[in-house]
């Protein structure tokens, strides 16, 4: 089979975004520079989500900000460091190549109004609202646990852009189905599930929690079974576009997310262990799998487990 047909098998449309393949760079990974976005795209990603951008620049936490665990998982508390929406819109102003989704973080609707207006005109294909960063107060989960706040943030964002808006949810102290319901009612085009889960690593030699923020977010293979469950429940209940996220390390994981109900999926932690070539190896794995199963389009995978 020639390369072109192969790659056509992976084309799909998600909430109005046309992607050459369903493999998306997750927010927070390498995501602050246009040059890196272009490199990630050249390495085979279908789309890229930026680091979460806030209204003003944020320095984030002191190091250590990332702890590597035994089982190819991380705990991070980077603290949402980002250049702020002003500098970031400058950064991406020349973008005409990369299907870029901008992740936004803020503490009230006015933040989102300003940021959406600032960035809407750039060469981007959509927004992702990060309601679920588990380790920064007054941003992320604390906002995302309040359905009323979620509703007004999503409404504000939607009313300032015509581009698709995804809402990223996490496993915290509220039910993801309730928060997703609030977001979808307010007009969100899809859900990204899941963010990292609050976790900690303590040094038994030094006695300190290692991260400077003590608590961080767990990512990687450890959270995959939880993320799969969330995607399955979301698809079962809402049948809306879903970006699956959490522990995708190889094509098998990717396929599992799609048959659970993900329209596309995001890859983060795996880059730390497999490098940027992980995008291409996942594509190749999916194509070979589809050939074995006799599928024409990757869309045939979406939600397939729900027939059983």
């Amino acid at each position, binding site marked *: 089979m020639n390369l072109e047909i192969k790659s056509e098998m992976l084309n799909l449309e998600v909430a109005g975004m046309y992607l050459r393949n369903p493999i998306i760079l997750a927010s*927070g*990974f*390498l*995501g*602050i*520079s246009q*040059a*890196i976005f*272009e*490199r990630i795209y050249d390495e085979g990603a279908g789309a890229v989500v930026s*680091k979460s951008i806030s209204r003003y*620049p*944020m*320095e*984030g936490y*002191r*190091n*250590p*900000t*990332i*702890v*590597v*665990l*035994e089982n190819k998982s*991380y705990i*991070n508390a*980077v603290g949402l*460091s*980002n*250049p*702020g929406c002003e*500098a970031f819109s400058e*950064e991406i102003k020349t973008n005409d190549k990369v299907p870029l989704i901008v992740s936004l973080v803020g503490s009230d609707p006015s933040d989102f109004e300003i940021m959406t207006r600032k960035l809407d005109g750039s060469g981007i294909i959509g927004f992702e609202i990060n309601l679920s960063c588990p380790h920064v107060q007054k941003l992320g989960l604390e906002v995302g646990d309040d359905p009323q706040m979620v509703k007004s943030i999503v409404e504000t964002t939607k009313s300032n852009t015509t581009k698709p808006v995804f809402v990223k949810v996490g496993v915290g102290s509220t039910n993801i189905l309730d928060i997703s319901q609030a977001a979808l009612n307010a007009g969100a085009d899809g859900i990204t599930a899941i963010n990292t889960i609050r976790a900690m690593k303590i*040094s038994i*030699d*030094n006695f*300190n929690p*290692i991260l*400077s923020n003590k608590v961080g977010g767990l990512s990687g293979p450890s959270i995959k079974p939880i993320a799969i469950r969330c995607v399955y429940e979301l698809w079962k209940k809402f049948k809306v576009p879903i970006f699956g996220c959490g522990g995708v390390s190889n094509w098998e994981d990717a396929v599992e997310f799609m048959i659970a109900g993900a329209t596309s999926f995001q890859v*983060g*932690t795996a*880059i*730390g262990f497999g*490098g940027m070539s992980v995008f291409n190896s996942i594509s190749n794995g999916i194509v070979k799998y589809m050939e074995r199963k006799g599928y024409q389009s990757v869309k045939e995978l979406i939600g397939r487990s729900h027939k059983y």
Partner: protein
Amino acid sequence: MVDHTNTDILRSVQIERVIAETPSIRTIIFEDKYSVASMPGQFLMVWIPEVDELPMSVGIENLGSHKFGAVTVRKYGPGSTALYYKKGGERIGIRGPYGNYFSIPKNLRNALIIGGGTGLVPLVRLFGDLLNYHVNTTLIMGSRTKSEVLFEHKAQKILTDNNHNGNVAFSTDDGTYGDKGSTVDLAESILLSKKFEMLYTCGPELMMKGVQKLGERFSIPVEASLERYMKCAIGICGSCCINDRLVCQDGTIFDSNRLRQLTEFGVSYRDKSGRLSSFIPQP
């Protein structure tokens, strides 16, 4: 048992000894088999509990017949100062070594090394390796002032061990030791009098930019070890990016071809928030 084959996992090590190198620089020595197997130019992430985690060039020190890992730190801000004041018996955490290392092309006959400050940590190691490989090498050691000259004893020992088949030259900002002025000026005068096949450099970025320009002018390949703000050191956070390269993974060492493409080299860097800032204050 915890699997420590993955060097990304933090290792807690006890400090074996601390050596004062200059009034502002100390070497912290600890047992670590991975550091001992490292190459010149690689670095560790060093956790100073309750303070910070910093990238530091990894060294190897002999105490008696036993090889230890080491970092040589200049006290500067809070992180490096806390590390500087650590004592034998205290614990720090390390992970790595990370990054690529200086390359020694086959049949290389002579090389010029230009280093400033703690940039000399990898370069003095490299100096030893080059002489070992019988590459005729000149090492330029730059510092602010005489008392801050780093690793002179190490460089001298390497010379002695290799029958003085190499040269060491010094420059200080204030002229208290060796030439007065920058290492780049000294390198220029040396290059005008002698041919070299390779330039190696590590130190302040504007100094390295100067070395790169010398390389272009004299048509000599350059390898420079770059510094950028590092959080993860494992290629995921993007904070160390220069153009489309990650200094922690694709570097820290870049060659002339790559340096030429890195339009940000010597021009701008990203701060902790990821904003581009200029090395040279904008007019």
